[in-house]
């Protein structure tokens, strides 16, 4: 069965510092990969996605993520965080085939705290 692991439940970063959120997945084949952000009391917003091609993908709000097949990882990075980045971040995977809407499998999320 597919699974997504986000090993860090909470991460605290100083404003202006760099950020890396980890994501590892277990899947039968290379899936589609996503990062979503959820601000308090809000829905989920897509930050970026990887389907194929360049393994470094750029997203919104200055985020990027790198797909590493050998490590089954899709880590999210940002060179300089802003206080407004404080939120819950979810990594998710979905199948490349299946002929139907199999849905996304989400990790349990990483809560990002920004220190002034």
């Amino acid at each position, binding site marked *: 069965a597919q699974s997504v692991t986000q090993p860090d439940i909470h991460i605290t970063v100083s404003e202006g510092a760099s950020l890396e959120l980890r994501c590892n997945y277990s899947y039968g084949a290379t*899936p*589609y990969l*996503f990062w*979503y952000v*959820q601000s308090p009391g*809000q*829905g*989920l*917003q*897509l930050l970026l*996605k990887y*389907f194929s091609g360049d393994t470094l993908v750029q997203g919104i709000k200055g985020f990027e993520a790198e797909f590493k097949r050998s490590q089954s990882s899709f880590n999210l990075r940002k060179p300089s965080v802003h206080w407004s980045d404080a939120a*819950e971040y*979810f990594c998710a995977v*979905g*199948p*490349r085939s299946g002929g*139907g*809407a*199999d*849905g*996304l*499998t*989400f990790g*349990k*999320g990483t809560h990002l705290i920004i220190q002034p």
Partner: protein
Amino acid sequence: DTAVSQTPKYLVTQMGNDKSIKCEQNLGHDTMYWYKQDSKKFLKIMFSYNNKELIINETVPNRFSPKSPDKAHLNLHINSLELGDSAVYFCASSQEAGNYGYTFGSGTRLTVV
């Protein structure tokens, strides 16, 4: 215009009641979903609908029933509500019944007392 809209945003109800949550998308997407987010923020898919057909039905109680009157709407009806049903329910949609990125609604916080 909101791409995926859910109503109501908050719902407080007593055990044993029946309630519905509505979802509408104006993106022209082919597939719609319902996800449940528990108190620990874990997201799990409940249902998806593609062209008015149920594609997957995870192991959720049969008290939960999705209803899709047309491609733009997927409502969630819950019978005999239980305390454990308290959660945030998210509607989402995607294009081409695939995984080209989902657009989520803002959620419905259901509290059963």
